[in-house]
């Protein structure tokens, strides 16, 4: 047998899913192992199928949930907003008509699409996973090739279980060293985005590697991969290892018995080969990282919490300077203000980035025996009903309630404000979500992206803070 060329993890997954190699300018045809569906980006796709008289080719590789629109209170009542209600009802009708499994609001398995896939064990190493949602990159934490698609592509996958695509370029994000206490996966990814920029990953699949990545739990790895799209990347991946296998073993859809052995054998081959070349490489020192927060209106506009609001006049690049000026004006911030002095009205803990049980535990540990500051509202929105259930079993809901935070039902909630959980014009949040775009959390709302630890400490002090600030004998 001739030795094969050393390949990256991404190339291995791509090649094992190539139904047909494109000739010349033609793209490859890539097989899709798992298609996740939600109410917002699917109605027009199902309509398209109906118009063309097509069926869902593989309902058995498709699963749907209600997450973007759903309220996080009074979920036993009909959805109050008639437009949201229609969209959710439309999903229910479509799933019934086309035979797609659906976890509706109130169901024990309902939750954010990117939380329930891994939780059910449906996301596995080496798979191709797509969803009409850009944060599909989350599933790359398992060594899957997972990426967001638009509604036309949703229709394409429903009809053919494939997508025509040109191979992505590869970029290694090497993070070596050891994170200091209080520094999390969220800080890693915010630092990566600040380093390479919101367009730095365009056309690439990022492979996160190095000792700091290997030391992360599965949930933390999901946080890192989740925000790959915020660096413009098609996908983010981490090679599967014992941490991955231990997470999957025993989950409802994980292989069992002899299948498990066969699967693990296959999964162990899913590593970038020695000598494989990436199209680009980036290095980050984990020892140097500190809690990171954003000050602007795109996720690349971030700095260590210990820094101050930057001065646009000192930015050499004209486009970046103008963007910073616009951002500071929208955010109502003055250059030179220490980030720690920025006061918030709302703290949001949740989303597909940081709405899993470890995130809630981390925040609860900070809030234990403390109170949310006067005038600050804190929303805690678990990523799924299972996460909510697990948190309640551990008594975390009590910790949040005792601190004065609101304990909610599962959904996307204030990450994008499609349901009633929104910022009012001019309100400012510290949010564990993924986007600080203008108006993202509500028209006129201002968002600072933070880790769950920073979110909890900020709730207590009322200004952007890390848990260390609480120990330093601050007033609160």
């Amino acid at each position, binding site marked *: 047998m001739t030795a094969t060329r050393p390949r990256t993890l991404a190339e291995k997954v791509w090649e094992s899913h190539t139904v047909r190699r494109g000739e010349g300018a033609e793209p490859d045809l890539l097989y899709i192992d798992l298609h996740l569906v939600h109410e917002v980006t699917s109605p027009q796709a199902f309509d398209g199928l109906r118009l063309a008289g097509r069926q869902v080719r593989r309902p058995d590789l498709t699963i749907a949930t209600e997450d973007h629109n759903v309220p996080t209170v009074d979920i036993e009542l009909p959805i109050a907003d008639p437009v949201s209600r229609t969209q959710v009802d439309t999903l229910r009708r479509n799933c019934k008509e086309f035979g797609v499994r659906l976890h509706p609001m109130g169901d024990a398995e309902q939750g954010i699409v990117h939380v329930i896939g891994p939780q059910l064990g449906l996301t596995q190493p080496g798979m191709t996973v797509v969803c009409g949602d850009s944060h599909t990159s989350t599933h790359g934490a398992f060594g899957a090739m997972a990426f967001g698609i638009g509604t036309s592509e949703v229709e394409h996958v429903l009809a053919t279980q494939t997508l025509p695509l040109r191979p992505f370029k590869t970029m290694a994000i090497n993070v070596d060293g050891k994170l200091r206490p209080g520094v999390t996966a969220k800080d890693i990814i915010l630092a990566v985005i600040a380093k390479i920029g919101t367009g730095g990953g*365009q056309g690439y699949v990022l492979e996160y590697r190095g000792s700091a990545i290997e030391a992360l739990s599965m949930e933390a790895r999901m946080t890192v991969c989740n925000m790959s799209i915020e660096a413009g990347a098609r996908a983010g991946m981490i090679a599967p290892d014992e941490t991955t296998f231990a997470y999957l073993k025993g989950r*409802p859809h994980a292989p069992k018995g002899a299948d498990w052995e066969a699967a693990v054998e296959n999964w162990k081959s899913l590593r970038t080969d020695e000598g494989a070349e990436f199209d680009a490489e980036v290095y980050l020192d984990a020892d140097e990282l500190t809690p990171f927060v954003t000050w602007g*209106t795109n996720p690349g506009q971030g700095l260590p919490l210990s820094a101050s609001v930057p001065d646009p006049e000192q930015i050499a690049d004209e486009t970046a300077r103008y*963007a910073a000026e616009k951002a500071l004006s929208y955010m109502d911030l003055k250059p030179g203000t220490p980030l720690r002095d920025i006061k918030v009205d709302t703290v949001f803990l949740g989303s597909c980035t940081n709405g899993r049980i470890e995130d809630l535990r981390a925040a609860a540990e900070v809030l234990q025996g403390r109170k949310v500051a006067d005038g600050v509202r804190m929303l805690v929105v678990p990523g799924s009903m299972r996460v909510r259930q697990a948190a309640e079993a551990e008594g975390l809901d009590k910790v949040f309630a005792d601190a004065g935070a609101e304990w909610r039902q599962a959904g996307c909630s204030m990450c994008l404000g499609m349901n009633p959980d929104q910022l009012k014009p001019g309100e400012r949040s510290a949010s564990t979500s993924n986007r600080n775009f203008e108006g993202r959390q509500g028209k006129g709302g201002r968002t600072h992206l933070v880790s769950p630890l920073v979110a909890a400490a900020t709730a207590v002090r009322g200004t952007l803070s890390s848990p260390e600030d609480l120990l330093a004998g601050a007033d609160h």
Partner: protein
Amino acid sequence: MEPFKTHTGVGVPLRRSNVDTDQIIPAVYLKRVSRTGFEDGLFAAWRGDETFILNSEPFKAGSVLVAGPDFGTGSSREHAVWALMDYGFRVVISSRFADIFRGNSGKQGLVAAQCEQMDVEQLWKILENDPGTEVTVDLEAKTVRAKDFVASFQIDDYTRWRLLEGLDDIALTLRHADEISKFESERPNWKPVTIPAASS
């Protein structure tokens, strides 16, 4: 999809980088289940500001948007493309596009023309100095023209071919249905299925 050969229309200079899809169409407009009528959501927050470019004549009638780098970042919402097209845009010119936005554009027949940033700046100057200037986009030749200024743009050859022919992607893929079936018959049997729902 209608074939696209060339288009000539009023150019709109949008001097902003990182125009994310939440700006192109905010989430509240995404609750609809229809495929048309998204023009009211286009740049909804910015249109509330009377100095915004689309609020002034003759840009209101624009059909070629000339934007800063990293256009269409963020959410995968194809509604961003629908909103631009429902409003009347046929072409967006930028020096860098987010991948998902670029893909969505290609599916719908909106031309995402990637120009050098220096050419974008030149177009901005022309369009600002003489508002209402028409821009001609020739997909066959891959050029944009405004007055005497001509620049070339990039678009991948396959998307260009599909746009020129007005071809439907799904129909193209279904020509290979037998290859898909063959691939399916060879998938490892331990790969997960969603149905029937596993009890847990």
